[in-house]
């Protein structure tokens, strides 16, 4: 039965990297020593959700810093925003959407939900093409409105201090991570209950969990951080290559893609079929049945290629099986 579900050759490896990433980003919540306390290190912000709402977080999601930098007023805008963005840009170019499927804790949680759904035998709810393309824009809308809201708050902050504290960090207010980490830390006793509960963020956490259970990778479809990485996709080093001459248009890649990234199936001209919704999870590469049709690339190097399904030893002894007509038709 093995060849039916494919020897998974990427997923276990990816899972290990995800766990390491988790330890790196959130270890100190569980008492591991925080990585790097040097102030310079603290200037590095990561392109995805390692959350700021953890006490002593070594570093955090640049999205926090973007909002923070913009809402704080413009005295330190160079250090707070521009330098930070430059560093993030470099990180994105170096690792691209490896940040997503290989490191992002949100991604890991959603994959867990997917796994859970699968193990109770519920098929995923597939979005229609129209909805998908619409959602694709939502992430840019998030990005746009975050900046749009932050800038006037920042301008306001120059004069009136009051509105800054109430309206600060518009995206974080609705980010499920905030809800999760605040409550988690309160439960772990790392933070006093007096901080109060972030109700909005808790609601979105709930929505995130429920929707994520039925729809594969629901949050990634609207994630503004993923959106930025998608925009920079063509400049970043990891990419997904397709050799159209090998493709038989069997649609396996699209069917197994948790994000229904259709370019990987449809595009027959481009070399790079990633970006947009693709989080570089490599599932399509694992499943594509054509030798060398899809390849995960890092710059000019190929990391992993698709191959024809084969068993451990094609010539496995078949002799043990019962007679030709014996084990059929029951």
């Amino acid at each position, binding site marked *: 039965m093995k*060849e039916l579900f494919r020897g998974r050759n990427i997923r276990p490896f990816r899972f290990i990297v995800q766990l390491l990433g988790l330890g790196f980003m959130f270890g100190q919540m569980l008492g591991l020593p925080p990585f790097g306390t040097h102030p310079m290190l603290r200037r590095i912000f990561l392109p995805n959700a390692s959350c700021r709402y953890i006490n002593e977080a070594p570093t955090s999601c640049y999205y926090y810093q973007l909002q923070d930098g913009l809402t704080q007023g413009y005295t330190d805008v160079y250090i707070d925003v521009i330098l930070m963005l430059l560093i993030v840009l470099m990180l994105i170019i170096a690792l691209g959407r490896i940040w997503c499927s290989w490191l992002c804790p949100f991604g890991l949680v959603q994959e867990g939900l997917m796994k859970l759904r699968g193990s109770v035998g519920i098929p995923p709810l597939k979005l229609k093409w129209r909805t998908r393309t619409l959602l694709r824009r939502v992430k840019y809308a998030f990005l746009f409105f975050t900046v749009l809201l932050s800038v006037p708050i920042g301008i306001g902050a120059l004069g009136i201090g009051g509105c800054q504290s109430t309206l600060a960090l518009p995206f974080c207010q609705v980010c499920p991570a905030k809800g999760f980490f605040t409550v988690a830390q309160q439960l772990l006793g790392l933070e006093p209950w007096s901080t109060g509960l972030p109700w909005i963020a808790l609601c979105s956490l709930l929505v995130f969990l429920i929707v994520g259970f039925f729809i594969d990778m629901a949050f990634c479809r609207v994630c503004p951080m993923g959106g930025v990485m998608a925009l920079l996709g063509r400049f970043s080093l990891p990419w997904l290559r397709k050799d159209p001459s090998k493709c038989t*248009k*069997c649609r396996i890649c699209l069917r197994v893609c948790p994000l229904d990234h259709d370019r990987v199936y449809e595009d027959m001209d481009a070399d790079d079929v990633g970006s947009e919704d693709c989080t570089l999870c490599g599932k399509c590469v694992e499943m594509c049945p054509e030798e060398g049709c899809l390849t995960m690339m890092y710059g000019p190097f190929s990391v992993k290629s698709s191959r024809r399904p084969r068993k451990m030893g094609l010539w496995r002894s078949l002799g043990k099986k019962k007679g030709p007509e014996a084990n*059929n038709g029951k």
Partner: protein
Amino acid sequence: MENEGPRYLKDRKGYFPKDQRQRTRKRSREMEASVSSDLKKQRNRPGKMAYFDEVLKYGGMRFEELREFHKKGGKIVGTLCVMVPLELVNAAGARSVRMCSGYYEPVHPANELLGDAGLCPMVKSTLGRKMVSSDPLIDLIDLVAGPATCDGKMKLAEILEDWVPVVMMNIPRVKVGETSSDLWVKEIVHLKDRLEELTGHPVRKKALKEELSQWNEANQYWSEIQKLRRSERPPISGRDAMLVVQASQFDDIRRWNRKVKELIEELQRMRTKGIFAGEEGAARILLAGSPMIYPNFKIPSIIEGSGGTIVTDELCSGYRLMSDPVLVDGLSKKEIYQAIAERYFFPCSCPCFSPNDERVRRLKEVIKAFGIEGVVFHTLRGCHLNNLEATKIELALREISVPMVRIESEYDEGDIEQVRTRIEAFVEMIKARREYHRNPILEDVQ
């Protein structure tokens, strides 16, 4: 059923005289025997081919097995097209038999009755076989699964309903992605329901997975054979390869896998010893177009008898039977059915689909990969879909300067000499071309 009684055949009994049935049976048997003995005469034929001859033999070993199975209450399902998932049929506890006919004689009764002389002879032969019951195997069939692909196949399924229950499958002929996929998944699930009704066994997930992995294994073996055929001097002839893959449509897939494995081992031994099929320096031909069902091996025999070797084909009675595995990701039943449905739908380059640009693109790729020197495009008379695509393909091949010859054929032996003359000329032309147009790809085929 609301409309009682036969709709096409007014008088089901006694329309055809008894001796016509006898005659059709006798001629069919003779035809099969002569084609088979022709095949056996091939130079350097692997000994393991004998098994596949036996599976496809008229009234042979496989027929006896199926008759036994049927006598014990087992159900036999006839399929009219490659797009019927045999995994599903077998997982429901039934046995599958490809119904499409390659016999010439049954065309006559169908001609007599239908009054459409221009219809595809394969459709007529299949129908005629049932009408005069020219083959005892056909009479065992309890249910027919017929996707409505081309006009001929669609009406064939409808007419067959006068004799045997039919599941018509509404194949979405405009291939546009999600909507087509959804529709086809529903059709597959409907087929499953009908099969369960027929056999009385529910299709269990376990059985289905077991069947799927058997067929996937068969796919692997087939791609192994294709790999061997790519070599500079293929150890197996095109006709034999077609015979092997067509046998899978009748045989028990487990046994087929075992036998093919033995065959591959023999072929590999042959290759290391430098033994090959066909002639030295034969023209490397790709066979394309309408299906060629055993024993209608007229054109392949002519090609391989006139200095060509069929290195591969793009027929739905050839490589396309086994070209793709079913790969399942999720474990829910819905996902498994979707995987099956999409496997039989999306990679299929049947000319009944539109758009079908994939076919041309695939063909060009295959030509490159197999070092093809010329394409023989065969159409059955009345196959408009293939005829129209032939024009498109001819133009596309001109771009990469691969010659193509178009052959139209009927189900009779009258045109053999004429076809032979054309193919001999074609093969000569290819060989003459070599002087100044050496196919560069041949060198890197291992």
